[in-house]
């Protein structure tokens, strides 16, 4: 587990996002126990206080809960909550820039919708 943190965002935020990704992708399933703060900080070579900060973002959002004396676990409805949260972010991070880029390239609305349909049929669920 040697992931390099980039300089773009504070490390604890990057750790939190990594954890969220892991929950969404199913790497950490609901009610699973996740590694301890020590294990995270050792694996990513980061300060344990920083690791704790990152984990606490998820705890505060109700995505993780702590069982005293045992460790930290993924909440039962974590995936749902995350998906909701991510949808709004999906719009902001992907859809909006995509639209802006499309405008810059001079793509019309109908062309745009055509592209969307094409994408959905090629990769769709």
């Amino acid at each position, binding site marked *: 587990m040697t992931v390099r*943190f980039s*300089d*773009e*965002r*504070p*490390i604890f935020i990057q750790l939190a996002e990594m954890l969220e990704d892991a929950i969404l992708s199913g790497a950490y399933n609901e009610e699973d126990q996740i590694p301890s*703060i*020590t294990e995270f*900080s*050792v*694996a*990513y*070579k*980061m*300060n*344990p*206080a*920083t690791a704790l900060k990152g984990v606490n973002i998820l705890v505060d959002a109700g995505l993780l809960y702590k069982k005293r004396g045992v460790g930290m676990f993924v909440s039962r409805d974590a995936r749902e909550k995350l998906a909701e949260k991510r949808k709004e972010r999906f719009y902001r991070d992907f859809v909006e820039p995509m639209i802006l880029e499309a405008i810059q390239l001079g793509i019309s609305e109908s062309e745009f919708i055509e592209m969307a349909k094409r994408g959905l049929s090629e990769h769709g669920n």
Partner: protein
Amino acid sequence: MGIEIKNVTKNFGSTCALDQVSLSIAGGKIYGLLGNNGAGKTTLLNIITNRLYPDSGEVLIDDESVSDNDRALGKVFFMGEQNLYPDNMRVHKAFAVTKLFYPNFDIQYANELAGRFGLNTKKKITALSTGYASIFRLILALSVNTPYLLLDEPVLGIDAQHRDMFYKLLIEKYSENPCTILISTHLIQEVANLIEHTFIIKNGCIIKDMPREELLDGGYTVSGPASLVTSYLSGREVLSVSSLGGLKTACVQGKAERTDLPAGLELGTLGLQDYFISLMNEEENK
């Protein structure tokens, strides 16, 4: 509680190595003492551990002066670049001697680490290569279990694999048995994610003394087409600028305002090493 350094000044002949340095080290955090070679880091650490005497000022550990005070000095272990054990002493004997003086020294753990690093404890300390001499000192530092741990350029001369091992062991130890650690180094990038509080020292003066995140929050990077960047920079406190072709990247002091950011420009957070370099250059450009 903690290590208090009060107005310490030290001159070597006509050179001023430390100028009115005051610091506070406490609270079970990992501190970074960052500076270039010759900035005064080792001198400061030598003064904290009573190996050198300051010309003025004092050092207190848990409210006691360190001068000739075994009780205070016994709470600190200083891992410096110098080997202060007798040259012809063997490693296992050095472990035993350290245990004599630091009762919490864990010999079993030290031997276990020696095995993991591949250090032959029967060897004499002088017979160790540069890398293994450092590893020997690292093992001492990881096994000594004192409330305060000072590390001066801990990984110099150590290969990448063993460096990695060391950082992981250090974090593991710190996470399970919190203590106060100070890492003094000029390898900023290596320790950037490890340290919680930053001291930056230049030419014997402390120019920054704040939590790492606060330090990095105090600036940001902006990059994009050169002309856009240049106009953006007017009226702002610029730390450094670098350009490549038509693109420019600048480090700026202050808070980033995303709202009035012109299109085409990108903002980013400051990396510790870049910020450090900017600071060193900034001081020179003044």
